[in-house]
C-alpha cells in the first residue's frame, strides 16, 4: 500500500524539472522575461515602471476553478515585496489542466462583466476598477514528454489600466509562460 502511494507520488512529480522557473531576460524590456512558449514558468509586467516578476522561491502561477469561474493567480515580487495579481474569469470551468486548451487563442476583455482583477501587495488586497485591459492567451499546449501526457503550457500577454490608491496606474507589457500541472491546478 505504502509502495503504491510512493510510486504514485513519484509519477506525479516525474518531471519536476519542468516545474522550475527558467528566467531569460527580455533584451528589449529590461527586468522582464522574454515571451516564450516553452513552459518556463515565468511571468512579468511593469506596474508603472517597476518590474513585477515571478521568483524562484514562489510557485509563479496557480489556476483555481470554482464552479463556473477560473482564477489565474500570478505570484511574484516587485522591489523585493510579495505581489499577487489575480484574474477571475467567469464562464470557464475546465475539469483538468488538460482541458485548459479551451482558452487557446482567446482574448479576454477584462472590463466586461464576469471579469475581476485583484492586486495584493504584501497583505493589502485591492479589487481593481479596470479602466481598460485584456488578457490574451496566445497558446495552450498539451505537453507530452516521451509520449506521455504530462502537463499543459499556457502562454500569453496581459495589459491593463486601473486605479491604485486613487491614482491611475498601468500594468503593461505583461507576458506569461506557465506550466500548469498537478501541483498548481485546483478544481474544487
Amino acid at each position, binding site marked *: 500500500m505504502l509502495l503504491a502511494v510512493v510510486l504514485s507520488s513519484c509519477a506525479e512529480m516525474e518531471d519536476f524539472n519542468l516545474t522550475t522557473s*527558467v528566467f531569460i531576460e527580455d533584451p528589449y524590456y529590461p527586468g522582464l522575461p522574454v515571451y516564450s512558449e516553452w513552459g518556463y514558468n515565468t511571468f512579468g509586467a511593469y506596474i508603472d515602471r517597476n518590474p513585477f516578476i515571478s521568483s*524562484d522561491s514562489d510557485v509563479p502561477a496557480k489556476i483555481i476553478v470554482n464552479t463556473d469561474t477560473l482564477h489565474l493567480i500570478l505570484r511574484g515580487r516587485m522591489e523585493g515585496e510579495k505581489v499577487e495579481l489575480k484574474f477571475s474569469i467567469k464562464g470557464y470551468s475546465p475539469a483538468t489542466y488538460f482541458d485548459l486548451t479551451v482558452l487557446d487563442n482567446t482574448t479576454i476583455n477584462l472590463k466586461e462583466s464576469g471579469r475581476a482583477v485583484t492586486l495584493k501587495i504584501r497583505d493589502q488586497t485591492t479589487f481593481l476598477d479596470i479602466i481598460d485591459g485584456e488578457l490574451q492567451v496566445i497558446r495552450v499546449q498539451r505537453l507530452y*514528454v516521451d509520449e506521455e501526457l504530462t502537463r499543459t503550457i499556457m502562454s500569453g500577454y496581459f495589459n491593463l489600466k486601473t486605479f491604485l490608491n486613487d491614482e491611475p496606474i498601468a500594468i503593461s507589457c505583461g507576458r506569461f509562460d506557465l506550466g500548469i500541472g498537478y501541483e498548481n491546478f485546483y478544481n474544487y
Partner: protein
Amino acid sequence: MKKVVFTFCFAVLQVLYLQAQEMPAGAPPGRWVSFVHVESGLLNPSGTIRDNIAIRQNISSFFVNQVSDGEINSTAFGIYAGLRAEYFLKKFKTGLSAGLRYINYGSEISGFSARNADFFYLRYSMEGSDTRFARVKSMSETTNFITIPLELRFIPIQRKGIGLFVKAGAELSLLNLRHSTHISFQDPEMNVNEDEILQQISTPANKFYSTLYATAGIKFGYEGRVNYIIEVFLPGSYLTKDNFSLTEVDYFEGFKLSLQIPVFKNQNE
C-alpha cells in the same frame, strides 16, 4: 573503411621514407623538386545549433541574462589524413600540390536541463494543441568524405633547416562515404521513434563538401631530407552549405602535422 585508409597511408609512408633514406643527402639542385606529403590533422568547425533543433533553454543565440541550472553545448570536430604530391619551383619558392584526403567529421549536442538531470528537452512536434518533448542525453552526427585537396604553398623564409610558409588551399569531395545521425534518449523506449524524430528535426546534410582555406606553418629539415611540418589553419570557409544536419557551421580552424618526403627521381628530368 578507416582501417583501409590508414593502412594504405602507413604503407605508402614506409615506402617513401625508405626511398628518401636511400637518396644522397643534399640532392643536386634543379629548377624544381617534387615531394610527397603525408598529412594528418584536426579541424574545429565553429557554429551554432540549427534553429529547427528546438531545445528547451537553448538561448545562446543572443545576449540575455538567464537564471537557470541548464546548459546546452554544441561541439563539432574533424579528423583527417591524406597524401599529396607537390611540385615545387625553387626560383619562385612556390609549390602546387594535389592528392587525396580522408575526412571524418563528428558533431554532438549535449547538455542538461537542471543540475539533477543528465538530459535536455528536445521539442520535436507541435501539432494543433499537442506539443511533444523527448528527454535526450545527446544528439550526434558523423560524416565521412574522400576529398581532393589542391594547395599552393609559398616559402618566403628558409634558413638552416627551418622554413616558414603560407598556403592557400581548396578541397572538393570525391566520395561521400557515410553520413549518420543518432539520438541518445534518456528513456530507451523512445528509440523506436528515433527515425521519425530525426525526420522532423534534422536538415538533410549536403552530399557534397567543399572548403577554401589558408594556413601558415613551419617546416623543419634540410633539403633532400624528410621534413617535418606543423601548420595552423586560419579561419577557413565552407563553400558548400548544410554540411552538418545538426549544426549551422560558419567557419573552421585546425592544425595539420605532415611529413614532406622528397622524390628525387624527378629532379634529373
